[in-house]
């Protein structure tokens, strides 16, 4: 027979000896391997008490960012929607009125902003396209839900809490981030 690699071994077809035929020795050998694994480091995690650290480039659910003064950064330029290969993002813009300068950073802002999480593929193109640093992919999963309606995220779902008017929620969100950072290290 011509072999390709010279590594092929012919099958041993000798009849088993007495010790081999009672199998005890082989069972004992197998159980020793099992016993060895008892004392090894565990590879499983006790989710949800423990979580596995995400890689620093993990692309999770989107957030809409605010600037240092708590104003919305998004100016509804539509570049995220244009870049989106899944066509998950839609928006409607409005003009900022006098007196709304503390709410919105630019003269135009997104009055409606929606991401269809059923369509989103978490590619991160929206984050890359954004000229205003307004949209980021965070380090968390999009939570699961029982019906499809809950996967249409509107602007209120996506915006981070305002540090001025919602300090508690902001501190909580920041704490979560610190925690996840600690897990990473």
């Amino acid at each position, binding site marked *: 027979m011509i072999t390709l690699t010279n590594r092929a071994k012919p099958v041993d077809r000798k009849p088993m000896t007495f010790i081999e035929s009672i199998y005890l020795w082989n069972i004992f050998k197998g159980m020793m391997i099992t016993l060895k694994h008892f004392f090894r480091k565990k590879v499983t995690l006790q989710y949800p008490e423990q979580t596995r650290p995400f890689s620093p480039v993990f692309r999770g659910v989107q957030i809409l960012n605010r600037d240092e003064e708590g104003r919305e950064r998004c100016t509804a330029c*539509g570049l995220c929607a244009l870049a989106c290969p899944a066509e998950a993002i839609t*928006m*409607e813009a*409005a*003009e900022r009125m006098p007196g709304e300068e503390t709410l919105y950073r*630019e003269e135009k802002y997104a009055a409606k902003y*929606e991401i269809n999480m059923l369509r989103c593929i978490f590619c991160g193109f929206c984050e890359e396209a954004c000229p205003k640093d307004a949209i980021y992919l965070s380090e968390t999963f999009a939570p699961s839900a029982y019906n499809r309606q809950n996967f249409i995220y509107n602007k209120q779902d996506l915006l981070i809490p305002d540090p001025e008017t919602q300090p508690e929620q902001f501190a909580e969100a920041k704490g979560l981030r610190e925690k996840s950072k600690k897990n990473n290290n």
Partner: protein
Amino acid sequence: MADQENFKVTIDNITTEVPAGTTILNAARQIGGDIAPPAMCYYSKLQNSGGKCRTCLVEVSKGSDKDSRPMPKLVASCRTTVMDGMEVKNITSPKVIEARAGVVEMLLINHPLDCPVCDQAGECDLQDLSFNHGKGGTRYEFERRTFEKHTLGNHIQLHMTRCILCYRCVFAADQLTNTRQHGILDRGDHSQIETYIEKNLDNDFIGNVIDVCPVGALTDRTFRFKNRVWFTKPVDAHRNCPKCCGEVRLWMRGDEVFRITARKDEWGEIRNASDGKMGWICNECRFEKKDTNDWVVENTTKVNRQSVIASNKYIGAIKPPEFMEEVMDGVKQRYMLDIHNVSEVNEPEIRLDLIEGPAHSENFEIADEKREEKELQ
């Protein structure tokens, strides 16, 4: 001129014959393609336009057959007429490419680069120019010249900060309307497009200044912030208008007409109407007929595939037939999720096309209230 022979001119090694008196730019445009120099201020439909922005600079490497010396400096091709046997270098000349990058940098010195906010983004000549011919950065370190934005009349929004002083709107107002009410005031760094003093521009054809503006300095207030240009779908339509040719382009979202402009050709200039006259449109057509019932829709506008406006438009796509009803013995398909029931974008409660100016938070609040009432019922 009639007895004069055609002149032979070679642009980027392509030889063509044009009548005497043709400018280099127009000769290049006849050849077409990449060798046509870009133009920001020259507008073939407006007399005396051109010669201001210097983006159309070309190198003349041979003056003519009779005098074969090259021209000493780069010349503005929109203002220089061809000579017999002239040889011109445009994209084949590194000198021209470098000079053009410099011109772009110069034009962008005072430009605010607020493209994410600007309504012209996507069809802006300056955007295309700086993308194709400009450099990545700027060396300008000083404060940019700023002006207050304000409105010229009910329909025209002026952002003077974005203006590149091409004078196209001035020529348009001069040549289309009886009295020009706006012009360029002051000199040098202070020069600005202005009416004197705070007048409304209300001539019947003044809306065309929006179309001739190469940047976002003059924009349509009825379209302001309604949608991005590339998300609206351009459609050619016409109506019987006593004042103008009535041949326009509708920019639509679904059945809503967001914006109406004149039809433009490949050079970004207004095309001639089917009767051979210039295709300027009147203010009534442009601003007041935001309803598909007013128009006879001809066909979908063909958009250059390289243009951002062509994105997300599936022209010629074949939709597979729905066979579920047939297979299921007439039982209609039930969607697990109808996005229109959930989504708050493009709601029937808020008709952006019917709002006069830009939408404000109050418009959306009214729509929210209406929707809540509906849900309670």
